[in-house]
């Protein structure tokens, strides 16, 4: 901020903290907008992300009774389908009684990430007119997709809770570990959503590849099996899988009833924070181009 400003006329002006009275637009250094004001503007418009997500959910009839029922039924059916699949493949009998709860918890967490990505991928390309018409931090669009995915994740907790209790899994303070894991999952979801949303601008067929990628990702994640059952020669997959550590920790807490192993938590922390930062910087460095690429 240079150049002394003359006292601004205030006759009709409403001095609101949100009305952004003075804007300076200069070339972005190293392709990035000034971070502090970017984050400030982003936070100032958080209601926009919430409202965008709300209209999206309304489109999916989230606000009707049947729509909500579907939100509960859908994950339940999903869990049943995968349980049958895995159980038949396993020639039955090899699972302990806790397996269904493990599968369910893992599947629901996975689908939170899954939904963040599939909703997020088109968030920028579909926001075309809004992007062409007004200046706002574009990251709001993919972040709003994460809110949408999270709102769809919440009812799955209601589906999971009775299974947890009926299976007789331990309930205690160790369950608080789910909170930091969830926080890291959200961070990961934000990172991935921003990443695919920006990439979709350049590669419009990305959204049609994604279902395959996500399917493979589910199979290499410790959801349809316990992490410790992975043969040693495939253990590395859990390390290079961004969800490997987090889902292992998730199952440790929910299913095994103990604090997660620090290794998995650190791995999850590295992936969550790392991906969030890298994807966030990538998105911001690209977003100035969106208006001319759409």
């Amino acid at each position, binding site marked *: 901020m240079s*150049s002394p*400003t*003359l006292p*601004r*006329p205030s*006759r*009709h*002006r*409403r001095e*609101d903290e*949100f*009305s*952004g*009275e*003075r*804007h*300076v*637009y*200069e*070339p*972005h250094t190293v392709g990035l*907008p000034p971070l502090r004001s970017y984050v400030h*503007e982003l936070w*100032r*418009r958080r*209601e*926009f992300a919430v*409202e*965008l997500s709300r*209209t999206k959910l309304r*489109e999916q009839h989230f606000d009707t009774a049947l729509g909500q029922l579907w939100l509960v039924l859908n994950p339940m059916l999903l869990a049943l389908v995968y349980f049958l699949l895995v159980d038949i493949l396993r020639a039955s009998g090899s699972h302990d009684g806790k397996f269904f709860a493990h599968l369910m918890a893992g599947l629901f967490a996975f689908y939170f990430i899954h939904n963040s990505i599939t909703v997020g991928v088109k968030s920028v390309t*579909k*926001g*075309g*007119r*809004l*992007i*062409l*018409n*007004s*200046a*706002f931090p574009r990251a*709001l669009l993919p972040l709003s997709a994460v809110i949408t995915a999270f709102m769809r994740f919440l009812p799955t907790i209601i589906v999971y809770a009775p299974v947890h209790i009926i299976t007789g899994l331990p309930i205690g303070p160790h369950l608080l570990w789910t909170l930091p894991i969830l926080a890291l999952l959200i961070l990961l979801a934000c990172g991935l959503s921003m990443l695919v949303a920006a990439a979709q*601008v*350049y*590669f*419009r*067929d*990305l959204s049609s*590849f994604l279902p395959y990628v996500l399917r493979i990702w589910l199979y290499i994640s410790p959801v349809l099996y316990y992490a410790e059952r992975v043969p040693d020669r495939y253990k590395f997959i859990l390390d290079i899988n961004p969800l490997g550590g987090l889902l292992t920790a998730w199952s440790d807490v929910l299913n095994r009833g103990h604090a997660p192993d620090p290794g998995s938590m650190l791995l999850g922390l590295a992936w969550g924070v790392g991906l969030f930062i890298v994807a966030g910087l990538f998105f911001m460095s690209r977003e*100035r*181009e969106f*208006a*001319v*690429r759409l």
Partner: protein
Amino acid sequence: MSSLSVSERTAVNVESVSVTYRTSFERAPTLRSTMLRLGRRERVVREIEAVRNVTFDVPHGTVLGIVGANGAGKSTLVRTIAGILPPTAGRVEVHGRVSTLLALGVGFNRNLSGRDNVVLGGLAAGLKRGQLAEKYDDIVAFAELEEFMDMPMRTYSSGMYGRLAFSVAVNMEPDILLIDEALSVGDARFRRKSAEKMRELCGEDRTVVLVSHALGTIQELADQAIWMDKGEMRMWDDPESVINAYTEFLEVRQDAVTLEEM
């Protein structure tokens, strides 16, 4: 380039601004085509120098008209002032709250109702919910779309689209209003109404930057005008001289057709 007396109260200050961007001229950029292209070692990215070293300022309460042929950089310039496209070089300084009415207007999701689109557009522009609620009735009343607000925007006619967009832009109580080729919306009555609203806004010490091919509108509303040509500013003067020079350049006489059409 003539130098008009620079007011002390500048609303928009554009200082040797250049905007260059790279865009791909593929029909639909895809991963598949990129990989095929890499195999053939082709490049499809083109650099476009949309605005080149443009300097001007707009004092508060002034209406600035921008004229120029298609592709002269008018829209890019206005987008830069709006903060949508960052400049590649130079500096833009804007004092006051900006409201934009660029070619496409509101209605970014045609499946959402007019109400949802107005709310989302307002929130994206940085308004608070309460502030938006305050203005909502004015917006709807001005656009005369009371009974259509809860219908999806895909059911709107293009005139209704334009009316709503105009109404949103002017009712945001902007200090600076950026309008790109959008005054010619709606029927004759609404056009008159929007012209009146524009005059009213100009009288209230607000600043307007107006891009239009309708030279009559520029001549009537603007206090100053800029003529953009191939990314450069050819002229900055009072509207009459600019329009005269521009029409002379176009080798068309300034007759009624040029003034009224579009």
